[in-house]
């Protein structure tokens, strides 16, 4: 009787003779049992792949079609314009939030920054020094408001950089503190824009596009190019993906993160200015909960809270998804509170699907 080892030895000899067949890349397709082959063919379709990487756009498509049938006014050009204008506020901040979150940080202070910038924009126009400037008095007011946003962002970034305290904590503190400053500055009162040119701005159109929508779309394009094509964008992914490797590649991580906080501060302030032109006023409670809407949009768009992954195309999808849902349900006269319930559910559902796709695709473990 042959001991088991010798049997194996001889088997090994046989195996070593002819070269083992190489593992074909698409081995799954040649396997018996056609389902896996079909699934893999399905997955090789570039459009399917793209939708699996960006599940939010599939969702945008579905809700768009749904509301087009469900509501007679939804599928009208004026309504599409509406959606873009309505979403421009959270959309602009979401652009900055995408950068900050890919960096592995977060900024909770955007709502408060928005309110402070709006208060400045409306109040400064009525300062006595600018009384004789006519419509030009708007210019220093808006510039100052934007500078306030950038400065607050720089402060957040500087603290994160120098203290090493988690951005969540730093900006949570900033959110409370800045909101307090808003109340101090406004004395709990709303400011009203006395110059009507200011509030008229929000109804201006450039060609077929309302100016607010145009600003949003241009900023989206600009940040998309910044993130996908520039050195700063590349470093944003590197710092969020592996901070240590980024340091070892000579990237100055602290100043880099500070720039992204300044960018989001700018967008929060810009958003505040545009919102106050729509209302012709700045209220101390402006922008409450905006940080949550913005983070929802960015996360829906596939950006990871842990950093290193995400893009503007996804964020744009996330912003549109929220905009379409709010607008469509409003047109169908669904009470506003249900919108919150449904959005909350969708947020979890989309992330669940994302996790499923990514897990099965990587042959990942059940952890």
């Amino acid at each position, binding site marked *: 009787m042959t001991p*088991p080892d010798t049997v194996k030895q001889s088997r090994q000899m046989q195996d070593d003779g002819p070269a083992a067949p190489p593992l074909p890349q698409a081995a799954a397709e040649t396997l018996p049992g056609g389902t896996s082959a079909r699934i893999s063919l399905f997955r090789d379709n570039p459009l399917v792949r793209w939708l699996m990487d960006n599940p939010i756009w599939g969702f945008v498509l579905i809700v768009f079609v749904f509301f087009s049938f469900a509501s007679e006014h939804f599928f009208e050009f004026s309504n599409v314009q509406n959606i873009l204008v309505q979403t421009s506020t959270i959309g602009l901040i979401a652009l900055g939030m995408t950068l900050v979150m890919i960096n592995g940080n977060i900024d909770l202070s955007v709502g408060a920054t928005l309110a402070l910038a709006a208060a400045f924009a409306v109040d400064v126009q009525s300062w006595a020094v600018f009384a004789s400037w006519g419509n030009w008095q708007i210019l220093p007011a808006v510039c100052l408001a934007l500078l306030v946003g950038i400065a607050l962002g720089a402060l957040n970034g500087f603290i994160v950089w120098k203290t090493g305290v988690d951005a969540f904590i730093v900006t949570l503190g900033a959110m409370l503190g800045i909101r307090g400053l808003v109340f101090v500055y406004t004395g709990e009162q709303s400011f009203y824009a006395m110059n009507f040119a200011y509030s008229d701005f929000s109804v201006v159109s450039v060609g077929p596009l309302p100016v607010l929508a145009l600003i949003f779309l241009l900023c989206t394009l600009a940040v998309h190019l910044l993130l996908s094509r520039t050195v700063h964008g590349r470093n944003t992914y590197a710092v969020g993906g592996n901070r240590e490797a980024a340091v070892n590649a000579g990237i100055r991580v602290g100043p880099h993160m500070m720039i992204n906080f300044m960018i989001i501060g700018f967008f929060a302030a810009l958003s505040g200015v545009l919102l106050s032109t729509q209302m012709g006023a700045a209220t101390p409670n402006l922008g409450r909960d905006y940080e949550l809407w913005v983070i929802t949009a960015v996360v829906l768009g596939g950006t990871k809270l842990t950093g290193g992954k995400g893009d503007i195309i996804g964020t744009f999808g996330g912003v549109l998804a929220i905009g379409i849902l709010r607008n469509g349900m409003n047109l169908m006269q669904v009470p506003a509170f249900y919108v919150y319930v449904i959005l909350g559910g969708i947020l979890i559902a989309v992330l669940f699907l994302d996790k499923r796709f990514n897990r099965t695709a990587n042959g990942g473990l059940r952890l």
Partner: protein
Amino acid sequence: MTDALQRETTAPALRLAGIVKTFPGVRALDGVDFEVMPGEVHALLGENGAGKSTLMKVLAGMYQPDEGRIVIGGREVRMTTPLEAKEQGVVLIHQELSLVPEMTAAENIYLGELPRKSFGRVDWRTLHARSDAILERLRCKFRSEAVVAQLSIANQQMVEIARALTVDARVVVFDEPTASLTDAEKVVLFDIINDLKAQGVGIVYISHRMDEIFTLSDRITVLRDGQYRGTLETALTNEDEVTRLMIGRSLDLSRDTTPVKVGETVLAVRNLTCEPHFEDVSFSVRAGEVVGFYGLVGAGRTAIAEALFGLRDCASGTILIDGKEVSIGSPERAIGMGISLVPENRKEQGLVLQMSCRDNMTLPQVQDLTAGPFVSSGAEIAIFDQYRDRLAIKTPSWRQPAGVLSGGNQQKIVIGKWLSMQPRVLIVDEPTRGIDVGSKSEIHTLLRELAAQGYAVIVISSEMPEILRVSDRIVAMYHGRITREFTAAEVTEDSLVQAISGVAATAEA
């Protein structure tokens, strides 16, 4: 032969037969057979990607095989979770420690199955009594009340092993258990493995280190490309045969002896001190030579590399490049001076795993590859292609995320990243950690070639064969001090071991 006869009469503790496991696009295991006898150490060998980890995950119930049978103690079983596998007596000791650092050793040992009293309260007394008994069996010197975070890495590993022994283990799988252990700690581990063996437990031992495998194992099974390549009696084989099975060809392990033209001193370090990591360190590196730093883990070798790369500030001492004193201060400036560092741990310190191979390779110089405001994709691809060919990096496309490549190819990406910057000094910390033998030899050859091309190369390694193979000069370190410097001609294994274990140092004092 008596062993073989005995094995025939007893049933295997574990038998895997014809295991097939496929993932989308890849057949990870293709009809693999594997068995472990009670009281046997069975080594499992294969290059990275050969399917060892997948096979062990099948064994531990983390993956379900598509085909094939798992027989434990004569009964065919199906296991769908790691807990079920453990109930069957199969336990896996992971390569990476998976402990909860804030908890005590006892809580970690019984994690998920703490003994209970009424109302679900934890039975602390039983917990500690049982844990202490297990730790004693492992001859550990710490108590089960110790908090894991405060234990040394070796003791943490003991806790991980203790975890395996809460059940009556039939089969214990060790996956690269010595990766983070010092030589002394290894000896303790091997004792424990031999104890378990004597108690009739079947051991599966996975490692890249041939010396360990030949010291410990009774039999060796080799996998290649997911396929079973054969099982050998350790006593009747040698490293060469095993290597051939593993990579399908023989390895040239000899040292490249072609004389190299050694040039001017590029980097000189004088009396550099950085407490508590190293003190009064002086050495120099010339263009065209490889200087190896050898010593135990924690001897201060990596800290010197970090200081040279601007990651650490030094209290005193000078660093000279081309004879001029420099102050480094940050990695950015180090890179500017032509110093580059391939770090010890490529996944955590060297690569952004989600980013593409190309983006990883051009990361430190991307600011110089712009066309107008944008990064020039063409320039990046040109660099990537050049170094992919030069270093023989195997990847289907530059778009591939770096995280999916094998260890050897990942390391080549990190090396390529720095070569493309045309550095003067290349510091490579543990060039082949966790890399399979085939790629290992390629990287050794590469390091020799780089020196021949005029780079000043510093290699830090904990593996003596590696240091001996690549270095022109060897700097031995012990407790933060340089104890001796050898030339390749004069060095012997004995003198090197003495130099790094403090023997020479105490003799002098």
